[in-house]
């Protein structure tokens, strides 16, 4: 059987399990007594080990095995969770992640045994000796634990042996059995039970076969090997093994496969216990194997016919009787998700865009035909609501929670905290906030940069914090929330904040600004210098940050996603970096306006109100026009000046002002006419003509005309 078809699933699942382990080990460090966490870790580690084994990744399996041993001791209360142990565990998780990455790249786990980590893990086990003296020596108890686990099935095995040894053999298998006997091998019959919620029974079975091959050979299986490969079995199957050694290690190996509920068996007697050879079976091990097997062979021939008839009637009855009952008892949760290639979603989205353009054309032809056909209008309205819903649904399909990106951060902050010798806590909210898949894939790095920045530059040393009267433990907050058509992700720390004057001095020092320019620039302009390439104020270059790459990468990455980064800071109190990202990149609700004789679209998301303003209400503050709107002083932006056309309104005529908001800033955009709200499809204008910052794209209107999209955020 080929395992490559399971590789993707293996990689996905391993990553999931590793992430799970990371999260739980972190939780364990906080609350080392929590049995739920320990059990969860143990289970996950065990599953991971089984998966690695199935896929034949021995090194990964060994490492996980040793890790599992540590957890098993922790679970039994034999050793206590210590900080150094958690460090070792994290190293171990990193190493496992490395295996997974290597496997993804090369389909092979590489040749790094990670012996130091294995040694460290074993040291954790040995440490137990001192802490729990009443137990036996660590190594022994490890074995002991295992033995104990095996003991129970052994007893069961004896009881079940008679049932188990009944195995159907076809002629080829019979031949194989005879050969094995001639070769002086021992024959064992084993019943393997797979967990009922197991999704990949065939894969698990394959793993069982592989495990068995370590010890011997599978001479027969019931159902047949082919059926097992095709998952044509309920939750159990029987195998006949020819091996040189004992049965116990084989059973243990089988049970180490994840999602295997149980395995037990006994010595195979050629025929069957049921067929009446009990006297001879009484002391199977005492008899000389060769002789015994020779005998058994002869008997097999005789017993074959009756045996086959018996098992055939027995087997279906058993599966028929047991299986449905089991199913009813614990119905496995059915996985109701589908994995879809993102490209298929992209093409679906494109089709929806086309549909919306077509719908817009229809709307505009209907309008030009006049309003006298109410039936047509009804249909068009219905079509509009359907296309809008369709668009929303397709968009939702593409949305994933940012959780998948941010869950790795607590671990990262913990490591940084240790490395930098600053106690730091990370508080996260809004992990469930959803963003377009393509955006989520890209924001991991920028967020990591910002968090590293906060940890390294933001949070002060504990002594400094103490002297400032702050709690010694620094706090970093990662908050995500939806704000209209945007998603905002904030990275906030209660550290030192940005020393604007230091940045100013640095700018002069680096020759970025002249002294005069630096003196004239306001704080915001200075802070924005931090986003320039190679501008770092960290006095020391650490390997965390301070090489001058980071913030500029953050900015360019976010801008490439049509988002923006904003900083607020107060010296001594901390800084907040906020990333604002559009919810969707393709279709938006827009307000259509006229400036001069040209039509423009403005994203509806940021628009607060539309005001009718008398020109006499305009005041001038520092040479800029502002209006006082219900107590808010709002700067005015005349779009006719911005786009370079003549306004069609007379000087003294009332003005239409669109009030838009970006973060906590407001601005009023003066337009000539309003057309109305419309769903528009954003089209790129290509790289040649996209030089102007405040035009974010173009859209095709219902009549085929093109309107440009004004990015209000770029003007505020």
């Amino acid at each position: 059987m080929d395992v490559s078809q399971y590789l993707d699933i293996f990689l996905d699942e391993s990553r999931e399990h590793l992430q799970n382990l990371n999260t739980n080990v972190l939780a364990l460090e906080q609350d080392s007594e929590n049995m739920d966490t320990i059990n969860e870790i143990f289970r996950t580690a065990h599953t991971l080990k089984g998966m690695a084994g199935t896929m034949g990744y021995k090194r990964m399996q060994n490492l996980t095995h040793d890790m599992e041993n540590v957890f098993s001791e922790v679970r039994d209360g034999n050793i206590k969770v210590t900080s150094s142990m958690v460090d070792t565990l994290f190293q171990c998780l990193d190493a496992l992640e490395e295996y997974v990455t290597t496997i993804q790249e090369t389909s092979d786990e590489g040749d790094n045994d990670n012996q130091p980590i294995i040694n460290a893990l074993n040291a954790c086990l040995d440490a137990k000796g001192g802490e729990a003296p009443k137990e036996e020596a660590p190594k022994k108890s490890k074995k002991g634990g295992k033995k104990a686990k095996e003991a129970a099935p052994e007893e069961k095995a004896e009881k079940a042996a008679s049932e188990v040894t009944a195995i159907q053999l076809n002629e080829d298998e019979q031949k194989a059995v005879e050969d094995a006997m001639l070769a002086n091998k021992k024959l064992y019959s084993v019943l393997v039970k797979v967990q009922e919620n197991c999704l990949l029974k065939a894969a698990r079975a394959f793993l069982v076969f592989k495990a068995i091959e370590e010890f011997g050979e599978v001479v027969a299986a019931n159902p047949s090997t082919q059926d097992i490969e095709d998952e044509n079995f309920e939750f159990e199957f029987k195998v006949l093994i020819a091996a040189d050694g004992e049965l116990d290690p084989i059973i243990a190996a089988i049970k180490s496969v994840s999602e295997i509920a149980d395995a037990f068996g006994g010595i195979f007697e050629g025929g069957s216990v049921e067929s009446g050879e009990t006297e001879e079976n009484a002391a199977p091990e005492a008899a000389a194997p060769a002789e015994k097997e020779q005998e058994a062979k002869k008997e097999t021939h005789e017993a074959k016919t009756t045996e086959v008839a018996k098992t055939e009637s027995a087997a279906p009855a058993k599966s028929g009787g047991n299986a449905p009952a089991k199913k009813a008892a614990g119905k496995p949760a059915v996985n109701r998700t589908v994995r879809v290639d993102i490209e298929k979603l992209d093409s679906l989205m494109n089709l929806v865009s086309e549909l919306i353009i077509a719908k817009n054309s229809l709307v505009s032809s209907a309008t030009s035909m006049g309003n006298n056909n109410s039936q047509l209008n009804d249909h068009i309205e219905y079509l509009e609501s359907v296309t809008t819903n369709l668009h929303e649904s397709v968009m939702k399909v593409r949305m994933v929670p940012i959780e998948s990106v941010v869950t790795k951060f607590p671990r990262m902050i913990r490591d940084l905290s240790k490395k930098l010798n600053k106690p730091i806590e990370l508080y996260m909210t809004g992990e469930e906030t959803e963003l377009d898949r393509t955006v989520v894939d890209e924001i991991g790095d920028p967020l990591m940069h910002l968090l590293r920045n906060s940890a390294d530059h933001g949070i002060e040393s504990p002594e400094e914090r103490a002297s400032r009267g702050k709690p010694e433990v620094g706090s970093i907050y990662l908050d995500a929330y939806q704000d209209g058509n945007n998603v905002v992700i904030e990275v906030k720390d209660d550290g030192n904040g940005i020393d604007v004057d230091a940045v100013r001095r640095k700018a002069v020092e680096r020759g970025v600004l002249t002294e005069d320019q630096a003196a004239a620039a306001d704080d915001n302009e200075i802070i924005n210098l931090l986003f320039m390439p190679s501008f770092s104020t960290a006095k020391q270059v650490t390997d965390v940050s301070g090489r001058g790459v980071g913030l500029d990468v953050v900015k360019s990455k976010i801008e490439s996603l049509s988002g923006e980064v904003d900083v607020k800071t107060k010296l001594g109190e901390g800084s907040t970096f906020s990333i604002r990202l559009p919810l969707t990149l393709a279709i938006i609700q827009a307000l259509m306006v006229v400036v001069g004789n040209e039509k423009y679209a403005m994203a509806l998301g940021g628009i607060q109100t539309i005001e009718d303003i008398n020109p006499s209400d305009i005041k001038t503050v520092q040479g800029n026009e502002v209006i006082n709107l219900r107590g808010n002083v709002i700067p005015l932006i005349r779009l006719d000046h911005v786009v370079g056309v003549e306004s069609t309104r007379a000087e003294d005529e009332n003005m239409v002002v669109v009030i838009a908001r970006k973060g906590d800033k407001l601005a009023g955009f003066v337009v000539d006419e309003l057309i109305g709200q419309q769903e528009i499809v954003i089209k790129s204008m290509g790289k040649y003509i996209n030089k102007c910052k405040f035009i974010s794209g173009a859209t095709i209107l219902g009549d085929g005309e093109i309107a440009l999209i004004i990015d209000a955020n770029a003007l505020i």
Partner: protein
Amino acid sequence: MENELAISKAGYDDNNVVTTTQYIVIALGTEQYGIDIKYIDNIVRMQQITRVPQVSPYWKGVINLRGEVIPVMSLRVKMGLESDVETKNSRIIIIKQDQHEPIGVLVDSVKEVVTLSSNQVEKVTGEAKEDGYVSGIGKQETGLISLLDIEQVMQDM
């Protein structure tokens, strides 16, 4: 700008093989230019061009070509001639190159398609080539055609 073109007699190709190329002949004012047909995706009639603010003057704006937004440039302005006058003969030639996004080029009119063999083309070399968009001169009974170096025009944006 010096109008002297350094023309070299390139009567024969290296291998003495005469190749032929098809050109679309367009008019800008009184002059005729040829564009290699392999770059041309389409020729469309004049249509409404949406102006785009704050771009170089030779960009006329964008048009809607069957649902795609395509930028349109004025070849006249680009070549340093006086700006376009729209007539019913005005055409937009859609140029598509493998690595580039398509663009439209606004011309006064489209005349004909000619086939020139390589020995009818005089290559433009030296200084004149470096700062101009003309890669060669095609000779015909009806007159001379300046052959446009489209790749150079596209690179220069």
